[in-house]
């Protein structure tokens, strides 16, 4: 197949895997400033599958769509450095507090704005929530079939794509017509490194929000090289109903957040001395825990 149009859904997330002691504030809320913002790992797997399709199908274009604050344009640049063609940041204060249902509503509207397309592809889940809901919910809102937990794209034939899925107890190979939504499992190939050529080309790509924070004059540059514009879309741009966004559009509410406090048990402290270890093993043997 030649010239597919692929939309990659990606999210910039706090790196919850490397949480330090300063990650929580004294009041029990998350100190986002202390956590580095990264490209959600499985979205990178999704980008890689999209890039592989592009490698094998000249003329394919990859558009990255992300929803978040203005600085989320960082991950669009990261995607461009690896071979994505362009990207959009869906950003608006009215999105704040959106749960997966409201988020998928907004993303689905943005995807529709980019239609026609062949494939919408995203990571299975984001590490700040681990819900794995947004991909299937976007698919439902678009009225499209979904293939979740993709590990490998096996082939294209006419308008049909064949994909290997990673399930908890094995693998499954399925074929589906396009357009469709695919979510990608972490067992899929890792994303390639930045490409020097693209890094130079897109180094100065900026969104409007980012331009406001810089004294450099990008406007002329962007006029001369339109590919350096990272477009931002607001609620109005995607034609969303505000009632279906943010807190009002989110059926799930957080009733309570507890900072993690470990309930103490009666505990015995041992050293690594031979005596301590031998006593412990004897005790475990005596009370039939082992042996």
């Amino acid at each position, binding site marked *: 197949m030649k010239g597919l149009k692929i939309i990659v859904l990606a999210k910039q997330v706090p790196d919850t895997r490397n949480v330090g002691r300063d990650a929580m504030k004294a009041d029990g809320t*998350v100190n986002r400033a202390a956590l580095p913002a990264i490209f959600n790992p499985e979205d990178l797997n999704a980008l890689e599958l999209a890039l592989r399709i592009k490698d094998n199908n000249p003329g394919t274009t990859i558009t990255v769509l992300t929803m978040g604050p203005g600085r989320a344009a960082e991950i669009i640049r990261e995607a461009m450095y690896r071979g994505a063609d362009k990207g959009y940041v869906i950003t608006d204060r009215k999105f704040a507090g959106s749960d997966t249902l409201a988020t998928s509503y907004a993303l689905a509207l943005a995807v529709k704005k980019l239609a026609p397309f062949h494939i919408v592809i995203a990571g299975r889940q984001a590490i700040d929530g681990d819900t794995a809901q947004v991909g299937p919910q976007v698919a439902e809102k678009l009225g499209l079939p979904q293939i979740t937990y993709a590990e490998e794209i096996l082939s294209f034939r006419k308008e049909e794509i064949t994909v290997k899925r990673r399930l908890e107890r094995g693998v499954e190979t399925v074929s589906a017509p396009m357009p469709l939504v695919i979510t990608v499992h972490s067992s899929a190939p890792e994303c390639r490194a930045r490409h020097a050529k693209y890094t130079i080309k897109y180094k100065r790509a900026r969104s409007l929000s980012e331009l406001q924070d810089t004294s450099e004059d990008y406007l002329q540059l962007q006029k001369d090289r339109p590919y350096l514009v990272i477009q931002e879309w607001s609620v109005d741009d995607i034609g969303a109903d505000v009632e279906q966004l943010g807190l009002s559009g989110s059926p*799930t509410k957080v009733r309570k957040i507890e900072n993690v406090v470990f309930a103490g048990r009666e505990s015995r402290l041992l050293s690594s001395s031979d005596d301590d270890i031998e006593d412990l093993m004897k005790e475990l043997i005596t009370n039939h825990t082992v042996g």
Partner: protein
Amino acid sequence: MHNIFVYCEIEDGQIAEVSLELLSKGRFLANRLKCKLEAVVLGDKLDNIGKQIMPYGADVIHIADDKRLYPYMTLPHSAIVKGIFEEEKPQIGLFGATSIGRDLAPRIASALKCGLTADCTALEIGNHTENKTKKEYRDLLYQIRPAFGGNIIATIINPDTRPQLATVREGVMKKEMLSPDHKGVVKNVDPGKWLKDEDFVIRIIERHIESRKVNIKNAGIIVSGGYGVGSRENFQLLYDLAGVLGGEVAGSRAAVDGGFIDHERQVGQTGVTVRPKLYIACGISGQIQHRAGMDQSAIIISINNDPDAPINQIADYTIIGDLTEIIPKMIKYYQKNTK
């Protein structure tokens, strides 16, 4: 109307473990709410399925028996479950947090515009007062789960939308038979009522459903390692200890992400939940996500060079020191005292 529904998964003609666990929890919640427990089963050749489900306390079982419904496919299953939910208007819907449940439940939530909470580690019933409006809600489902990398525990509610949907991983809830003689009503569902030809656009070409090679869930002794083990090589020590004690080796998510151990051995909220009689945590700091998967262990030993590691607070024994020194000693003194 307003009952609790459990979507039951089928594996080789049997109800999946996770579904029986959810039925057990569902029965408990139904008693609390004084409503009925209903099961939904979609598949092929389901003649004996009612008998498997009833002892777990289902009052009504909706069965859609059609050869097109096995193996699971997203579109036909979501069309039927959505159809049943629209007619029956459950107050709560429970799904396994499995490859199937996590594929299906979000589609249902999106179609019904209702809330869904993934990977709950506890489900409770309680009231809620909205802060701003002072509006009172009674008997909501508290959907409790670790969030944000396990640094917080969030209680999620769906005050205004129904059904309240949740997914729960296998092993989190306890499987408890209500009574072998419990009888429920079987309602045969005509799938044709909801299915369209377009629901079958995806074709399954091949499946290898491998039974789990490693079974840490049923191991009586688990030697588990975290990021603090340091390397894949050091993990060999854990295998040595597990081999001597007759146990299995597991790891935390950090150890899996670090490439020290395979995902199928991961304990925790996004892995397997275990309840061994002995859990030896080596170099595991003890994030709540990990704890959620092992804190029911009968005896917990923590080996850590950090006296302040959170896991030490739930450990029965804490050994402070270098695990490369401690584990060989444990092997040595175990062998010495069992001979």
